[in-house]
């Protein structure tokens, strides 16, 4: 394919013919000093906070600090090319990013520039990066489920559309894995996903993109990357940019899932900016408004009212703790902002419990209302039972003789823990989840050895799909019936019990 020069020349000629000379009125300032992603500018008398400014060479900045004699600007681009004495002009607009279908399936930077080599982002629509979150009258309470496909999460800390559920844990405890599984599970649900990678190694992000691509999830996902090598200003605005892209779909009545991976790095970038701007440091040297930095971001995840189309943004912010320290500044802030947290523990992770979720302190404050009814009936007491089991297990290690009832509870607990383990990138359908969790909590696994549980699960699910699709369909159609899987005489409950008994008869235990 070749470009024809004549045709391009004719377009340019037309443009020149129509060109009208206008006097360009602009407000300017002069760069006093520049470095580390920020600049101090003299002039720009009428610039507003958060307004976009343009440096020589087209580099964009944001007015961040308005001081008596200078303006602090954060530079969103290559600050090495800016010199002292350069002219800076205010643009009179707020920072905006391209939105719409053009960004879906792409890997982009926080300003909307493509990073995946798939050509320019052809979008005619943009949205401001920083907007005020919808108010009280524009919202409704969370009531639809956002299935993550993970048994442990969907059963114990269910997430609703419009909820903010924090994923928190030490490094290497599978935080990103949970978020990726949640994205993979949105296939065929029409939920648009946004993965915002902040301050991560580019190799990790490349890995995530590859996984998404291999599992066909990139088709409905946008990856917004500001890696470890990008200047702090871009890392700081990345989550806001990702949210702006999601909001476009939310206001159209669609549903979105945004993963911020991770907000502790964003807080560090914001601290860097604030300290360079000489804002006073507070606890752990973070600026005083680091709480607002996160709260105004996460407030934008919400469920819109019916009148506004009922769209939603569900967010899964990720926070990395150091040595399990949840009482550090940023973790406590984000815990208090979000509607619950999934707490991942290294000791569970290394003992093979994956996802390594600690059932005792993981909660979902609003998701219960959104949980599928049948799942709620099946898994209602699961979280507390499991937390009690952990206590009992610790007690049992003292070596005392246990009565039969305690032993039975322990055995049930071991099996439930085994049952909630799940391989990576294998999200499970909600009906499948209901079936296996019911099997565990109703005692159908009490006779199965612990080491056989996962094999039992695989074979059972295969058996259901191959031979008993009718029962599966029955649960699927009755899953929102409040009595299903609760009353023993309900048709669904009966069918499932028969199914489990039938399968257990043919299941061969390993010797």
């Amino acid at each position: 394919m070749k470009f024809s020069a004549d045709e391009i020349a004719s377009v340019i000629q037309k443009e020149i013919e129509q060109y009208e000379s206008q006097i360009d009125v602009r407000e300017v300032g002069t760069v006093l000093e520049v470095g580390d992603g920020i600049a101090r500018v003299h002039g720009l008398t009428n610039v507003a906070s958060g307004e976009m400014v343009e440096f020589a060479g087209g580099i964009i900045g944001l007015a961040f600090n308005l001081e008596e004699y200078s303006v602090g600007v954060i530079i969103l681009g290559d600050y090495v090319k800016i010199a002292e004495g350069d002219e800076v002009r205010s643009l009179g607009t707020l920072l905006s990013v391209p939105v719409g279908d053009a960004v879906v399936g792409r890997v982009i930077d926080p300003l909307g520039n493509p990073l995946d080599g798939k050509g320019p982002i052809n979008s005619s629509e943009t949205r401001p990066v920083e907007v005020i979150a919808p108010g009280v009258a524009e919202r409704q309470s969370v009531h639809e489920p956002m299935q993550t496909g993970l048994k442990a999460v969907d059963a114990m800390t269910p997430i609703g559309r419009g909820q903010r559920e924090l994923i928190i844990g030490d490094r290497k405890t599978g935080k990103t894995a949970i978020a990726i599984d949640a994205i993979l599970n949105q296939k065929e649900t029409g939920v648009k996903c946004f993965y915002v990678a902040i301050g991560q190694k580019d190799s990790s992000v490349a890995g995530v993109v590859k996984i998404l691509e291999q599992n066909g999830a990139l088709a409905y996902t946008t990856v917004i990357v500001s890696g470890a090598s990008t200047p702090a200003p871009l890392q700081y605005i990345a989550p806001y940019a990702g949210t702006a892209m999601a909001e476009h779909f939310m206001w159209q009545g669609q549903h979105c899932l945004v993963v911020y991976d991770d907000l502790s790095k964003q807080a560090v970038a914001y601290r860097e900016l604030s300290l360079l701007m000489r804002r006073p440091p507070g606890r752990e040297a973070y600026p005083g408004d680091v709480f607002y930095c996160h709260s105004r971001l996460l407030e934008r995840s919400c469920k819109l009212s019916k009148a506004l189309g009922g769209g939603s943004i569900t967010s899964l912010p990720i926070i990395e703790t150091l040595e399990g320290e949840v009482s550090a500044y940023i973790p406590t802030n984000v815990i208090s902002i979000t509607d619950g947290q999934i707490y991942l523990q290294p000791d569970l992770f290394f003992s093979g419990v994956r996802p390594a979720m600690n059932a005792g302190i993981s909660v979902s404050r609003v998701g219960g209302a959104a949980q599928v009814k049948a799942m709620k009936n099946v898994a209602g007491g699961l979280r507390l039972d499991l937390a009690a089991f952990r206590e009992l297990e610790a007690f049992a290690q003292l070596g005392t003789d246990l009565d039969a009832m305690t032993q039975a509870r322990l055995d049930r607990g071991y099996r439930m823990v085994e049952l909630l383990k799940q391989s990576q990138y294998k999200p499970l359908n909600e009906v499948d989840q209901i079936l296996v969790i019911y099997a565990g909590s109703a005692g159908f696994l009490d006779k199965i050895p612990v080491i056989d549980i996962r094999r039992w699960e695989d074979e059972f699910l295969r058996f259901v799909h191959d031979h008993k699709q009718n029962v599966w369909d029955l649960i699927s159609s009755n899953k929102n019936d409040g009595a299903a899987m609760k009353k023993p005489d309900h048709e669904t409950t009966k069918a499932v019990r028969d199914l489990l008994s039938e399968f257990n008869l043919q299941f061969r235990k390993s010797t």
Partner: protein
Amino acid sequence: MEKVAEHSTAMDTSQQRVGEIYARSLLAIGQKSGHVDSLLEQVQSLAEVVAKLPPFRALMESPRVSFEEKAKLIDKALGPQSTPDFTNFVKVLTRKNRFDCLPAVSAAAQKLHNEIRGRVGATLITAEPVDADMLRHTSTQLAKTLGKEVDLKSQLDPSILGGSIVRVGDTVYDGSAKNQLRRARSAAVQRAHQEIRDSMNRFATEN
């Protein structure tokens, strides 16, 4: 190496802050004695002279030279052509170790004085030298637009190619040929870009 722009304003913001305070008191002295214009002229010319004589400036700013010696030097340097008010002002400035703020004081005093009189300072930048007629004409036109009297200074910058740029405070009215060409270029590029995006087939030919 690229040329770095020269600043006409005081660029050290802490000096600027101090300069404003001294400028305000200088103007107050002038208003009391009725010699504002002469004081402004003196501070401006001293600032210009000092800028051209770095050794003098270094001497005046040096902490190793005692104030008495500096005071003697001021008397000798300013001599009879300076008013006693102004000589005293420079001595105060020196005693407080603020001689380095002199350019800032000069700039701030000019700006404050303009503000008080309801005038604004403006710069007309052109590629070719302009005559007095042209300057006056521009000045009246500007005064009409801004609703204020204008102190128009002219400045030469061949790099703008043609047309003119007027700078009032931080606002720039850019009618230069350089800017027109740049805008025309980016508009043409953008248009071509957009049309290629809209219909690839029109521009592309097989092989």
